[in-house]
């Protein structure tokens, strides 16, 4: 764990994934560096507190956090729609801190799509090129190309108010992509769509990003969405970066309680006492060699739940009673009572064995590989 913790200890030091860059079609996206970016709206309202971040070219990077954590403000500062109170923004190695939005080669897909109602789809997509003074034939060619790429070639003649939510989303994406920006910013673009469409577009966005090799910065409050799409994720809370890393690292090795909770972990316990051979929690002793930490989390999918009689007492086996059972098809999720008002959640793959009913006395076996310690 020592090696991992140095990799994620500081956002700037984190090694970004660059595996997609070689697939880029001819060019690669620009890198972004933020140095001590701070945003203060009023004396008592600080949105961002000294953000340091390095996003490499061609990366799909996600800013994840609850509402009000400052993620959208950070995105707006990168877009140039908001000025930082302090700090520097660099795109492609050059400072753009004082460059206004319309001179930055950065485009945004807005949460509300912000399509122009007085223009049709073709004119909406071509708006940015027209503002830059490109000639009409070239605009038309590029708009058609981009629309085909985004699979909305058949919508070009439509009025905006004739489009469905998913179609609007694609038009907004095309309108940004057609400008071939160094960086594409996406501000919760999928939040208004229903679940099915949402997962379809998540995959498609990843596909598009990989094909173009463009740098994407995606803002969301949905950790599932962040995990599905991103090369790396920065978790924000209260204007500070809590942790930066690939989704797997955030989920399997959260660095603090906030990240652990935000990644969906429920089995979080205080460490009462710790030594070389294990640690004590409120429900008993976990035996194994763990990193030092004030808290411990146990991943639900690494536990085994068996009938009480089917297991011999031993290290890391705890008696429990089934309190709740949630059937999810491929897994069953049990909430188990460990005594002393302590509960633990365990998920079991549905491999055809009979499930345990509520009230059944069971034993739960914790694997040390599913145990992670960290400091609050």
């Amino acid at each position, binding site marked *: 764990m020592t090696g991992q913790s140095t990799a994620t200890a500081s956002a700037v030091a984190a090694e970004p994934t660059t595996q997609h860059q070689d697939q880029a079609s001819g060019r690669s996206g620009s890198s972004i560096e933020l140095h001590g970016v701070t945003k203060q709206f009023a004396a008592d309202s600080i949105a961002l507190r000294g953000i340091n971040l390095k996003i490499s070219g061609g990366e799909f990077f996600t800013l994840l956090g609850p509402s009000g954590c400052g993620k959208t403000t950070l995105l707006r500062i990168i877009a140039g729609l908001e000025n930082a109170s302090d700090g520097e923004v660099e795109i492609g190695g050059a400072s753009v801190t004082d460059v206004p939005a*319309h001179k930055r080669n*950065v485009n*945004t897909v807005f949460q509300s799509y*912000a399509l122009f109602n*007085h223009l049709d789809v073709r004119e909406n997509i071509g708006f*940015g090129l027209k*503002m830059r003074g490109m000639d009409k034939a070239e605009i038309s060619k590029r708009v058609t190309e981009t629309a085909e790429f985004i699979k909305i070639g058949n919508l070009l003649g439509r009025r905006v108010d004739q489009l469905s*939510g998913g179609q609007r989303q694609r038009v907004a994406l095309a309108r940004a992509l057609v400008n071939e920006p160094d960086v594409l910013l996406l501000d919760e673009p999928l939040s208004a769509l229903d679940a099915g469409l949402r997962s379809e577009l998540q995959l498609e966005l990843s596909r598009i990003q990989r094909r173009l090799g463009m740098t994407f910065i995606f803002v969301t409050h949905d950790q599932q969405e962040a995990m599905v799409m991103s090369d790396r994720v920065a978790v924000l809370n209260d204007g500070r970066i809590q942790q930066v890393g690939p989704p797997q690292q955030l989920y399997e090795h959260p660095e603090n309680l906030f990240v652990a909770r935000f990644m969906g972990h429920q089995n979080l316990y205080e460490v009462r006492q710790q030594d070389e051979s294990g640690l004590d929690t409120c429900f008993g002793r976990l035996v194994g060699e763990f990193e030092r930490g004030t808290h411990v989390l146990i991943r639900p999918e690494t536990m085994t739940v068996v009938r009480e009689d089917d297991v011999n007492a031993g290290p890391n086996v705890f008696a429990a009673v089934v309190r709740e059972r949630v059937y999810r098809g491929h897994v069953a999720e049990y909430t188990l009572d460990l005594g002393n008002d302590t509960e633990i959640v365990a998920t079991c793959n549905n491999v055809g064995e009979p499930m345990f009913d509520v009230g059944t006395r069971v034993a739960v076996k914790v694997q040390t590989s599913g145990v992670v310690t960290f400091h609050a």
Partner: protein
Amino acid sequence: MSSRGFHRGMRAFWYVMLFFLYAPLAVVALYSFNSINSSAVFAGVSLRWYAQLFSDETILNAFYNSLTLAITSSIIATVIGTLLGYGMYTYRNRRLGWLIWLVYLPIVMPDIVYGISQMSFFTSISNATGLFQLGLGTMVIAHVSFQVPFVALLIYSRLVGLDAMLFEACHDLYAKGWQRAWYFILPTLRPAIVSSFFLAFTLSIDDFVISFFTSGPESVTLPIFIWSAIKKGVTPEVNAIATLMIGAVFAAAVIALAFQYVRAARPRAAD
């Protein structure tokens, strides 16, 4: 009271109210077609008063003055008011409380105060300098000053109703200040600008008091003509002029409405 009875009562009251609102206008129109010279007893249908009206030089001149006044002042007020409404929107987060006062002042102030203050002001200036002699010019100035706030508020409310992200999208899509104004704000506001022109137009046609006090001997408009005519009693001829003016206002109202709802009336696609 049962809820159904309550609802029926409300509906009945609504129709009574519509009757109350439209009866006086309907009566004016009715008596304008009266075959005898009375505005109390209706004897039969005739168009003689309309025929008389269109051969009366004074009335035609007054009509021409009214139209000139309304169109000129509405054009000026639409331009100035649109800019003001846009400014109020763009800088709505600044401390512009005084601006709101300034915009509401003409709306709330009784028109008699409006009229006499401008009359005494223009009279005193023209006595001293010869400028601003009472006439169509001073009437246009006076009308613009009460039309501007209405136009500004209409434009402002349209802008407030827009998604604020649209302004940022322009910025994001490389639009410079003038490009944003030309390619986004103006086309988006066009229906509101047209309907605010018609609103200003109806406000001008509607006004009597301010026109009355800022007018000169040469600038008699229709309402002023009617005013002096009915001092001797309401005649069917006056009813005929009034009917034409009511018709004009209704037409303007329909046009204003059509422009404002043109967007809402468009068919929408199902999601």
